[in-house]
């Protein structure tokens, strides 16, 4: 789960990382008030969970509170990369001398967290990594011991940080590490970490991504989830414990298991079709769950056929079959359905479906071919 800049920075501040004075506003009037409190120049920043806000005009430097209000007015009406701007952060403007990068994330190959620093902050760090990887200093951290002082110094030395700033940089690395660990982040980064004209370090922009699997430990963060990020259908799916992603094709898929769901998409494509979605109904799918899933699939107007591919392991095929039949009672549709059931109680499931005159397939390839044909009408 991605956190907004203003939330990430607030968390950083809780861990002793210096951030610019500032507050979040939902209206131009609020933005003006905040700018007045701050005094002097301020930065009005759109709070949306995508990169490239600056280029899109979503970050503006205001000379006066009145200008802050004006910019907030403009920005709060914008959409950036398809996402509506609902909040702006109004921060005190700072005199920037240098822009650094500092981040911590999981290195899955090393099975350890890695902290990264670069003297080239303020830009997309992936681009720096590609263009000149030697400019990113990496330091693996023992997940149990945590970051050590010498590691912070190695990073500081690696990016040629002025020695007067080492102590402050050390505190920031420790704070960022703790923010990462204690919030179960998979990413915590400061970009840019600014060296101000008066020789101080300041986290001017911040980003955190929280491990969805660990949200049970952070109910306060879960509440901050930005639903704008997801299509309504994806939100609806999550409510029912389904994993759904909308795609651009015309063959709806309902599958149990993520790997098999991807495989089903692949095979549809292999036989000339286009999948309309990824949908994993998970284990032990009940009739209610199947109904919800079918409803979600069919809200997509592009869908011209639906392929059910259920491999019964934990999931019992007869229950799934009953779920499909029950769902069809509730859902009014003439989209053709192709069902493939294999595994636990598959025979019973197929019996039920045959009675209801549903199209069934034995193999995955056959099912895919039937779905492609059905979608082409």
């Amino acid at each position: 789960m991605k956190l907004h800049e203003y939330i990430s920075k607030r968390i950083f501040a809780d861990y002793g990382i210096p951030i610019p004075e500032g507050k979040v506003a939902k209206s131009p009037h609020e933005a003006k008030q905040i700018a007045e409190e701050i005094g002097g120049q301020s930065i009005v920043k759109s709070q949306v969970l995508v990169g490239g806000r600056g280029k899109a005009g979503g970050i503006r430097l205001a000379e006066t509170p009145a200008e802050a209000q004006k910019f907030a007015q403009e920005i709060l009406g914008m959409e950036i990369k398809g996402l509506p701007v609902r909040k702006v952060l109004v921060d005190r403007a700072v005199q920037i001398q240098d822009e650094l990068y500092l981040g911590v994330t999981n290195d899955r190959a090393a099975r350890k967290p890695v902290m990264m620093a670069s003297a080239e902050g303020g830009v997309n760090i992936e681009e720096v990594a590609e263009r000149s990887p030697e400019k990113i200093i990496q330091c693996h951290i023992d997940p149990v011991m945590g970051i050590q002082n010498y590691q912070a110094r190695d990073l500081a030395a690696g990016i040629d940080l002025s020695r007067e700033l080492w102590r402050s940089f050390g505190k920031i690395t420790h704070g960022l590490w703790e923010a990462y660990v204690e919030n179960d982040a998979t990413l915590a980064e400061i970009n840019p970490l600014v060296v101000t004209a008066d020789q101080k370090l300041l986290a001017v922009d911040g980003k955190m991504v929280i491990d969805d699997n660990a949200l049970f430990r952070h109910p306060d963060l879960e509440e901050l989830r930005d639903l704008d990020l997801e299509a309504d259908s994806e939100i609806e799916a999550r409510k029912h414990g389904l994993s759904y992603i909308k795609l651009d094709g015309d063959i709806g898929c309902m599958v149990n298991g993520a790997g098999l769901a991807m495989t089903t998409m692949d095979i549809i494509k292999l036989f000339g079709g286009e999948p309309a979605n990824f949908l994993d109904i998970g284990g032990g799918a009940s009739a209610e769950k199947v109904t919800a899933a079918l409803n979600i699939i069919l809200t997509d107007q592009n869908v011209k056929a639906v392929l059910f591919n259920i491999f019964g392991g934990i999931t019992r095929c007869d229950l799934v079959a009953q779920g499909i039949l029950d769902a069809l009672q509730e859902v009014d549709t003439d989209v053709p359905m192709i069902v493939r059931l294999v595994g636990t109680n598959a025979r019973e499931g197929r019996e039920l479906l045959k009675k209801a005159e549903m199209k069934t397939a034995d193999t995955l390839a056959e099912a895919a071919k039937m779905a492609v044909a059905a979608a082409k009408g």
Partner: protein
Amino acid sequence: MSILVDKDTRLLVQGITGHEGLFHTEKMVSYGTNVVSGVTPGKGGEWVLNGKIPVFDSVKIARKATGANTSVIFVPARFAEDAILEAADAGIETIVCITEGVPVQDMMRVRYYLDQRNVRLVGPNCPGVLTPGEAKVGIIPGHIAEAGHIGVVSRSGTLTYEVLYALMNQNIGVSTCVGIGGDPINGTNFIDTLRMFEEDPQTNKIVLIGEIGGTDEEEAAKYISTHITKPVAAFVAGRTAPPGKRMGHAGAIVQGGTGLAEDKIKALKNAHVRVAQHPEEIPSRLTI
């Protein structure tokens, strides 16, 4: 012969009194797996499956009382770290963690702890290990595989069943099927399993089932070209998955240029692995 689990497996079920634990314990027992005991803290002294299997308060006590050498974990995600550490500390040799949704930082700590010890973890977020005719440890349906000489290793769940089913339909038997799980940080990876299959006299050929995300398949390909003499067939799921979207498995995120299915397929082909276009093609890739 086979790998990881067999007739000598003495299985302990952690979380045996839970809904999932109990359901699958019955399936494992029916299959013929030697389930010797279960653990649910606070329920020591009870029995499950009509008095067939004793429940203990801790793995340590259960192991002492029943000589368990292998453990399968069905506890909820928030308790998985503790359950794995408990099993390792009690001297269990092979731990299979079925639980999905374990936080990644928990798994980093688990890896730190296990790396100091001589213990094998399979999973988490995996369907478990099946040695047809000998032992079923986890949730892989027993009736979709026959004993034979193909070693199967997979990051996926139901997709694995699909492959097993396709093999069975062609009368191809399996030595052991290992579901290593789809999480970014897990206990056993492709290379660990490939090494075991290479050393296992019962295994003649190997099937590897990968998916998008990470670089495990690429590393496996490197290992195959230098260490594996047995023929390998493979399938990689996710060629049509859009980059950056989360596909259910935490591991299946395409990150910054790596993790794409096409790259994995290319690496495997370069290692002379026979890559199938869909799972039902796997049997033919093994026989031709």
